[in-house]
């Protein structure tokens, strides 16, 4: 069977041919870069989980971006401080894990949980506007990390390094058809690899556990939930803080696994893109993960077009657009999705509404 003439014919069709060329380009290039897609997807997916947990229990968390940034910074700084204490250990065989790396990871998650507790306090106890509370967390995280980074970077310190990716056996990767898929989910560091399991676990937890049922009840109708004896305030606190742990993982991933250091503003809006992924995924963990994957594909394409642009007519069209506009693509996609291009989605009924116990009369 000879497909080349067919392909050439399809590519030659005016205008429509470009669409076929695009498909051909993506089929040719994406599988080779499948692990990178997962690297792009991981922080988005983890942050989307934060959004799912918080909003399912009725708290809007727009401060995910800042929480991630603070966690990324913490992971880096703690690594700098702790690494010499352990005598700058060499990376181990398993994911390059060292004691300083583990401590940094724990610190990052801890800081994220603390920041989320602050958000919970402001939005649940003080009943401050949740959007403002989250925004202030974003501004504060950008300000504090920027300030400290200026101070610390002067002596160009060395961090604790990074988690290494698992190398799947070559035979597995080269399997026809499924090899790239296996590579995508195996050629990863520990945080990215555990993301899939966390997402599945969260899905089960949210829809098949007592806690999940209660969480959803509190997010849909807190008054009713309270009448059957659920402590709304307590559950919301717990969930916002658990959500914070996910944001902490996402932040740590950026400075410990995707790269090995912190840069000012390195989250580049991922916390917000994750919220769009959460909405697109209809406030479900698996939906959020799949949406995050889609965003990751777009992030990856916007990079690949600069590195390996397609040939032929499509290449001419694509390279005539300035590279910076390709960088804007994921953000534009986020706006389109928010505007309901994928169908209207309905948030939990009590999402974003502070809860006030009925006065004991």
């Amino acid at each position, binding site marked *: 069977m000879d497909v080349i003439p067919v392909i050439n014919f399809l590519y030659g069709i005016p205008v429509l041919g470009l669409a076929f060329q695009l498909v051909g380009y993506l089929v040719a290039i994406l599988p080779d870069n499948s692990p990178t897609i997962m690297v792009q997807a991981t922080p988005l997916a983890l942050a989307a989980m934060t959004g799912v947990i918080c909003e399912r229990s009725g708290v809007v968390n727009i401060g995910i971006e800042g929480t991630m940034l603070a966690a990324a910074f913490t992971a880096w700084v703690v690594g700098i401080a702790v690494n010499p204490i352990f005598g700058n250990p060499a990376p181990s065989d398993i994911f390059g894990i060292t004691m300083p790396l583990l401590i940094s990871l724990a610190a990052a998650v801890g800081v994220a949980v603390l920041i989320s507790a602050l958000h919970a306090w402001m939005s649940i106890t003080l009943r401050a506007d949740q959007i403002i509370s989250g*925004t202030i967390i974003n501004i504060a995280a950008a300000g504090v990390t920027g300030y400290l980074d200026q101070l610390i970077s002067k002596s160009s310190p060395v961090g604790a390094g990074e988690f290494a990716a698992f190398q799947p056996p070559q035979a597995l990767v080269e399997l026809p058809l499924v090899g790239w898929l296996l590579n995508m989910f195996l050629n990863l560091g520990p945080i990215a690899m555990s993301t899939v399991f966390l997402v599945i676990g969260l899905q089960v937890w949210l829809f098949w556990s007592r806690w999940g049922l209660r969480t959803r009840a509190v997010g849909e109708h807190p008054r009713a939930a309270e009448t059957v004896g659920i402590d709304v305030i307590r559950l919301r606190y717990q969930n916002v803080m658990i959500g914070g742990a996910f944001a902490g993982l996402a932040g740590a991933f950026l400075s410990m696994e995707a790269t090995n250091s912190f840069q000012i503003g390195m989250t580049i809006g991922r916390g*917000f893109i994750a919220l769009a992924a959460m909405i697109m995924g209809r406030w479900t963990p698996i939906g959020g993960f799949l949406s995050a994957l889609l965003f990751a594909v777009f992030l990856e394409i916007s990079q690949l077009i600069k590195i390996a642009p397609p040939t032929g007519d499509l290449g001419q069209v694509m390279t005539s657009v300035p590279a910076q506009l390709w960088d804007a693509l994921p953000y534009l996609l986020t706006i389109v999705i*928010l505007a309901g291009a994928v169908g209207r989605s309905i948030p939990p009924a009590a999402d974003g509404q502070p809860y006030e116990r009925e006065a004991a009369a």
Partner: protein
Amino acid sequence: MSAPAPAPRARGGVSRARVWSLVAVPLAVIVGSAVLGAAVILLSEPLIPGRQFDPLLWLTAYEAMIQGAIGDPQEWAALDFHSLVSTLVNTAPLVFGGLAVGFGFKAGLFNIGAQGQFLVGALGAVIVGVWLHDAPAPLAIAGATIAGMAFGAAWGFVPGFLKAFAGAHEVVSTIMMNYVAIQLLAALVSGPLKVPRSPQAITFDVGNAAFPVIPFLQPNGHLGILLALIAAVGVWWVLYRTTWGFEVRATGASPDASRYAGMRPRLITVATMTFSGMLAGLAGVCVLLGVTKSMTSSFGTTVGFDSIAVALLARSNPLAIVPAALLFGGMRAGAGLMQIQAEIPAELVDVIQAVILLALVTSPVIRRLLHADTRGSHGTETAASPAAEAAR
């Protein structure tokens, strides 16, 4: 349900308690933040390489910052007010930005996209300013300013429209618009707008379109400072003396009630975001035509974030935004000298700003006062009351 939107408090009958709440609370917050800022300086001292611990470094830092912001008596004696003028230059865009964010708050909208609207406003100003660079100055200035306003307005219109007619939350969509603005600016400045054969990505100078320096405000106090003051009064007028302003405030207080009263909240949402974007665009115009006069691909300041702080500190009152902007303008103006004299990064201002914001939201006292101010309903709304509940 709640009572109809309360009448505006701005006119007449200003009680002493009201003045107290307007002045005392921000003052307490500012002083408290300065103390915390000093603590941050003390704690971060060990991180400054090759420096002995100085328990009074915070004093040196604040001294330098204040000197950078207002100058010192020797300069004043020599009639040299360049520090004060530089504070005003830093203040002007913050007034526009604060008005933009504050106006949105009044309609229950959180325009966090002031940064993006600021950038495209400057972009509009530089495009038309370069084009008209040898036209007569009044024409060139007016053209560039209007272009900046139009660009900013367009950048605000998109999220406003999407919010009103597609339910896209304005907070996320405006932030996404910020990132798009950054990339658009970079693409244009290193592409079509770039000076040919220049090693650096920079546009031509705006020439005659540059804001003239006000004679009293040598060396660099430009027209934008005056425009900012006019804008503050103008926005106050629009909000409290026009029908549209009343509709904006009514929609912010209760979209449902305003709909029953025959207003159209969706159109008001679109109009508010557009107007807000236009004001933020003016902030960009102000920096571009007044300060930089050309654009590099790294054009950008902290105006966007600062504007949110200014609006919150002034509780969205257009007239109170001027002193709030002055505070941040002064800190930004003084931060440079502080960095030189005390080796404390200028980003300390960001930290102080963050503390101010946290204090504003968390202080129960302030919350109660704000609550008493915003509405007489059931106590779930606070501060600037954007539309968390009407969001989606």
